């Protein structure tokens, strides 16, 4: 019977072989060294599969707007409406000239929605990929990377609103603008870290997502997003805003674009929080990577 299988026949499978000679070694246990090595290998694989991450993210955006006329430009449009509405309302409430408030609110809203979407989608980065997780072995960090890349695409659509506001008000790039590059790099690292942490946590404990959602809602009002300490200077100092991590992270990008010099303290605090976040993400991922397939 086996003779048939081994007999000569033209090989009809097209010469598409997967990654040949790959060796996977899985050793169970709680020792840190092998767990860390596995987590590192996972991250390396995600990096080498960047084209897949890219395609998955593009498809995610496409799917969300498949069949609609404007497509992903609905993002741009709804952000524009939001910026205009809040701009008019709060410039009246705060007694600020619209031309000063509009650049601020457009930046704040776009950056904040990037942050809060990243957090919300980070929570479900593993649970929504259950079928994929169960079908084949693939690096888990790919799902976190996908959320980050997808949200960068969303951000790119929303940036058009900022560009438009800045063009209309003739605000030009200034000498601080280059700080945008280190600032956004830090954001990407933090975003990936937060997705790994929340993804694992929310897979294990299913009532974390609503907790995170309500925390983010509070954070939106507590953090200078629609108001700013500078704008409300006449009201005196506002309680503890420099120690709010959202404020520091927001300001390392927002301040340079509004051509306000940013104090090194803000950067130092932002770096401090980011370091904690990255270390925490490392620990959580090393510890939970192997268990996530069981939890989903």
């Amino acid at each position, binding site marked *: *019977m*086996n003779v*048939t*299988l*081994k007999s000569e*026949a033209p*090989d*009809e*499978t*097209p*010469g*598409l*072989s*997967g*990654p*040949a*000679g*790959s*060796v*996977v*070694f*899985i*050793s*169970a*246990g709680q020792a840190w060294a092998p767990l860390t090595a596995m987590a590192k290998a996972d991250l390396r694989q995600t990096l*080498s*599969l960047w*084209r*897949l991450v890219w*395609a*998955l993210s593009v*498809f995610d955006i496409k*799917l969300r707007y*498949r069949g609609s006329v404007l497509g992903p430009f609905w993002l741009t449009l709804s952000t524009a409406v939001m910026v205009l509405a809040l701009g008019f309302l709060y410039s009246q409430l705060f007694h600020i000239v619209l031309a000063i408030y509009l650049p601020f609110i457009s930046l704040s809203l776009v950056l904040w929605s990037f942050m809060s979407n990243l957090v919300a989608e980070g929570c479900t980065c593993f649970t929504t990929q259950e*079928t*994929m*997780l*169960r*079908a*084949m*072995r*693939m690096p888990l960090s790919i799902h976190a990377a996908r959320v980050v890349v997808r949200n960068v695409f969303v951000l790119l659509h929303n940036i058009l609103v900022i560009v438009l506001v800045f063009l209309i008000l003739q605000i030009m790039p200034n000498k601080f603008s280059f700080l945008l590059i280190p600032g956004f790099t830090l954001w990407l690292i933090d975003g990936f870290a937060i997705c790994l942490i929340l993804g694992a946590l929310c897979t*294990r*404990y*299913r*009532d*974390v997502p609503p*907790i995170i959602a309500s925390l983010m809602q509070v954070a939106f009002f507590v953090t200078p997003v629609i108001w700013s300490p500078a704008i409300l200077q006449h009201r005196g100092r506002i309680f503890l805003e420099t120690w709010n991590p959202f404020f520091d992270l927001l300001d390392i990008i927002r301040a340079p674009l509004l051509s306000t010099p940013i104090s090194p303290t803000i950067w130092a605090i932002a770096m401090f929080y980011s370091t904690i976040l990255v270390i925490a993400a490392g620990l959580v991922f090393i510890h939970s990577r*192997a268990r996530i*397939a*069981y*939890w989903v």
Partner: protein
Amino acid sequence: MANIDIQNISVEFPLYHAESRSLKKAMFAVAAGRIGEDAKHRPCVSALRNITLSLNSGDRVGIIGANGAGKTTLLRTMAGIYEPLRGQISICGAITALLDPSQGMNLELTGRENIRLRGLFNGLSPQKIERLQADVATFSELEQFLELPVRTYSSGMVVRLGFALATAIKPQILLMDEWILAGDASFMTKAKHRLETMVRGAEILVLSSHAPGIIMQWCNRVIWMEQGEVKADGTPDEILGAYLSPEQFAHAQAAGSIAV
């Protein structure tokens, strides 16, 4: 040389009830100072227990056993999807696991897009992805359906796409669950032919099936699973002879030789 080496692995599934999965319960447990106890007394289903196996090039392994014996879990563990709680596995060689018909496809995306994703996952170049799409399109006979979302397919079409996709990329180790044998007759003849050339190309085949005829026909080694343990491991004649009743065994032997 492909090989799978499994050393004394155990796989347990923690049973999280709606409540025990919640943060509230864990926090209350911390508060009451019995988190350690909680972790130990957490109810688990042990799916695989102390399994040691070594599969080498040329092995065509059939896995048999009752429902819930751990056949699929063993396949998933071999694929590296579930990492065991104890023990170790080393998998040497490119693996394709045909575990369920939808193969982790995104049902909202079109067939063609899913093929592209699979190609990217396997690190194929854009030219090779085009060849993959052409190959899958011809084999699955889905043609214009490939431009439609997979969720609009009939279940038979999903099987066809999943099968064509999984078999178009040549693995060294092929893990298959029995769903593959549930298609319409005309497609099955074609699928069987393709599977045979693929099995010939693959260095290791692991097939979980309830159909003794299929096992007799394709396998040179059979593993009998019972309650998460390997009950017996040997040649198809030995194991199926013990597993089946005499007349079923005679029937399986006949089925095996007819198919040849």
